């Protein structure tokens, strides 16, 4: 049976040091929910509070309507997958997977049947009698996953499960994880610092920084309408330009350096007044043209990567920017060439001067205040 998880005003302190000041989040039943953030942002701390390995200094955590703050970790019915797998090295693959079932004192036939079922599901049945030291990293990860799922937990928690694998295996395993999660339909909380990995597996992502949730949303929302400067630069790559919002004839216009202006129709009403702003333009949201309207810039360098070509430019006022264009059949623009940069105005994001909020409409954020 799957559950929803409610975290209400959770506080985590190590001595005098507050790691999580006040955090609330709702995780829906059966969803794949990811905590994403740079190292030290508190994502693993939060996961371990849910698991019961970290104490909770304030607030409450609920599984459905059951408060679990003081429930022994052994009784929370959680399946957990650790960064270093935490496979018992002294037990065979089968005994590792069966460990939790034996602990629950089920009868032998059931244990055998369930163990076989999950080993088959994770494609490790052929290694059933091997010792873990003779398994590859990917195989160990599969054992860890089978061991966590076989006890039919209410919640599956995964702490950077792919970070010890090589790049190719990581891509392969994240497909496996997503597929298994969907077929079992279990509420999953996943921790990672790799935004690409988070986008690939998650239904929803919570972006965290300094112990606080910045934004919660689907991968698409986070990328296209980030709630603030941190999210816009942590998810994907972006260029941050200084500019100003100007009202002309009752219509908001965005003015870039050098006087380049574009009309912005989707500014939230409360922000529709003259103000300095920061503009987040992703590399693919620039259009390069040799002449015409735009920000004046000089090409410094270019990298041809097959599908795309990356250009590195310096604008007239000295800001460095990166631009991605689909590779053309004709020649690459040479370094030293002067160009004009225009923007795809429906895609770019406009932030307040301090970067704390996105002033455009359509920013979805499931984050709860307070």
């Amino acid at each position, binding site marked *: 049976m799957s559950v929803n998880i409610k975290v209400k005003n959770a506080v985590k302190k190590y001595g005098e040091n507050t790691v999580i000041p006040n955090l609330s989040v709702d995780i829906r039943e059966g969803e794949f929910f990811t905590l994403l953030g740079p190292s030290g942002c508190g994502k693993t701390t939060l996961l371990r509070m849910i*698991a019961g390995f970290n*104490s909770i200094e304030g607030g409450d955590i609920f599984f459905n309507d059951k408060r679990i703050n003081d429930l022994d*970790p*052994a009784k929370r019915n*959680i399946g957990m997958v650790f*960064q270093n797998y935490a496979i*018992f090295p002294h037990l065979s693959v089968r005994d590792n997977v069966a460990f939790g079932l034996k602990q629950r004192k089920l009868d032998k036939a059931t244990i055998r049947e369930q163990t076989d079922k999950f080993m088959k599901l994770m494609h490790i049945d052929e290694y059933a009698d091997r010792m873990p030291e003779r398994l590859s990293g990917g195989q160990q990860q599969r054992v860890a996953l089978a*061991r966590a799922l076989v006890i039919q937990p209410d919640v599956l928690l995964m702490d950077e499960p792919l970070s010890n694998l090589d790049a190719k295996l990581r891509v392969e395993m994240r497909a496996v994880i997503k597929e298994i999660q969907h077929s079992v339909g279990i509420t999953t909380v996943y921790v990672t610092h790799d935004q690409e990995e988070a986008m690939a597996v998650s239904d929803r992502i919570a972006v965290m920084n300094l112990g606080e949730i910045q934004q919660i949303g689907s991968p698409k929302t986070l990328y296209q309408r980030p709630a603030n400067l941190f999210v816009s630069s942590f998810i994907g790559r972006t260029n941050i330009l200084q500019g100003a919002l100007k009202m002309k004839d009752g219509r908001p216009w965005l003015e870039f350096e050098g006087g380049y202006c574009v009309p912005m129709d989707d500014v939230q009403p409360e922000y529709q007044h003259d103000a300095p702003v920061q503009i987040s333009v992703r590399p693919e949201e620039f259009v390069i043209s040799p002449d015409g309207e735009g920000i004046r810039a000089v090409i410094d360098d270019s990298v041809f990567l097959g599908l795309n070509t990356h250009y590195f430019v310096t604008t007239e006022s000295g800001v460095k920017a990166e631009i991605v264009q689909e590779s053309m059949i004709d020649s690459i623009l040479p370094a030293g060439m002067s160009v004009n940069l225009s923007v795809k105005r429906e895609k770019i994001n406009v932030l307040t001067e301090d970067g704390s909020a996105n002033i455009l409409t359509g920013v979805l954020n499931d984050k709860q205040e307070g």
Partner: protein
Amino acid sequence: MKKAKRADVWTLVSLAILVTYALFLIYPLVKLLVAAVVKDGQFTWQYFGKFFQNKYYGKTLGNSFKLSIASTLVSLILGIPLAYFFNMYKIKGRTLLQIIIVLCCMSAPFIGAYAWVQLRGNNGSITRLIAAIIGHKPPSIYGFRGIVTVLSLQLFPLVFMLVSGALKNVDNSLLEASENMGISGVSRFFKVVIPLCMPTILAAGLLVFMRAFADYGTPLLIGQGYQTFPVIIYNEYFGETGTDHNFAAAVAVIAIIITAVIFLIQKWASNKFEFHMNALHPIEQKPAKGLRGVLIHLYSYILVGLSFMPQVYVMYCSFRNTSGKIFVDGYGFSSYKKVARDIPLAVRNTFLIGLLALAAVVLLAILIAYLVVRRRSKLNDVIDTASMIPYIIPGSVVGIALVIGFNQKPMVLTGTMFIMIVALFIRRIPYTIRSSVAILQQIPMTVEEAAISLGCSKMEAFFKATVPMMRNGILSGAILSWVTIITELSTGVILFNRNTVTLTLAIYTQVTRGSDGPAAALATILNVLTITSLLIFMKVSKNKDISF
């Protein structure tokens, strides 16, 4: 709510351990301190005054220092190059040599001293041989020189083993990098290898110093009037004339202060060299060729041979015929027959006392290691510190403290087997804790958490997941502890009586009586026990490296 959660099963374990330490370590030490400064219910500095006023005692202190420093230096000079050669070059017969090296440091030092007296004493076989060749007697082995020789040959294996361990963590690329920068051979040894091993060298130096400083049997047998600290402590407490228990206690307190200061200096020094290494590519041993190869082999064989010679000689002696106390021509089992009556009791005691002490050491060491590594708290810091106290207390002082602590009602334990077990337990546990801590630090906490998330209680998780992972390390540590327990002398000699005599103590008794044959026979039996234990160790740990 918080508090209630923290006070789990492990808090009880902490408290139980603390009580054990308070009773068997802190209480006797406090009694010892009191004995050193209280006369007839009055505080007095008189006993300390006696020590510092009488030049004789000052000289003894000086003697102990001189020979400990000399033995430490010689052990380092002998042991470091040997470790270097063993890790850099393919030495022929290395496995056998390594077993012998371990055997040498596992036997009781006084047996070595005793054998050296037999070999190089005034009437020793080698002395006579040399005299016959060069026409006059070679310089005497007795006194300072003899003690340093015996202790160095006894203790350099410790340096060898510790430094070998450190060299195994040196990445080959470091050596290649230094070669790349033009530093190779001898200058690389001094400029790169020695600095990399410095923390270990300091630790080994401390270990050797402590053992040399606390050694009781060697100066007694080969010192011939060269008085040292432990001998005074023993004589003042158990000597035949003019014993002064309070004065013995005062000397013991001074000994503790000195070893504590040495310990702190070493800690301070090794903090300056604090770094961690982990070799991805360990050093590969190259074949030793040409003249260099010959010299390296010669050095290794001669050194190992020299340190093993006394033991071989003792075993040889055990099969010689005796007449009274003197060896005569011919071979047989007469020495064994003479001790046949003593053997069953001594062997029984050796096993009983040794195994019980071992069980206590292993269990407590695992629990303490767990508390120290996984459950840092003020309470457990106290346990950590308390458990390391015996590390700096000479064995004879532990013995005296236990006698003073437990020879009066309501706790009369002297003369019992129990106090012997307590003594061995206290002496051995710091080493076992250290090795258990090292093992535990390599086991990720997540393994235990995985077990908990799968439904184990905290204790179940510890015994089902962590202990099995520690098993090999614990087992090999236990066998090493076993070997040091069965060869322990300096504490036992103060606490034993007729009924609790062990093999080592029986040998000591025979040696002091001048019964060379029976002593040799008993020593041979002890050696066989030691060798068997070590062979089991190697079988269990599946490698040939032994560390502490």
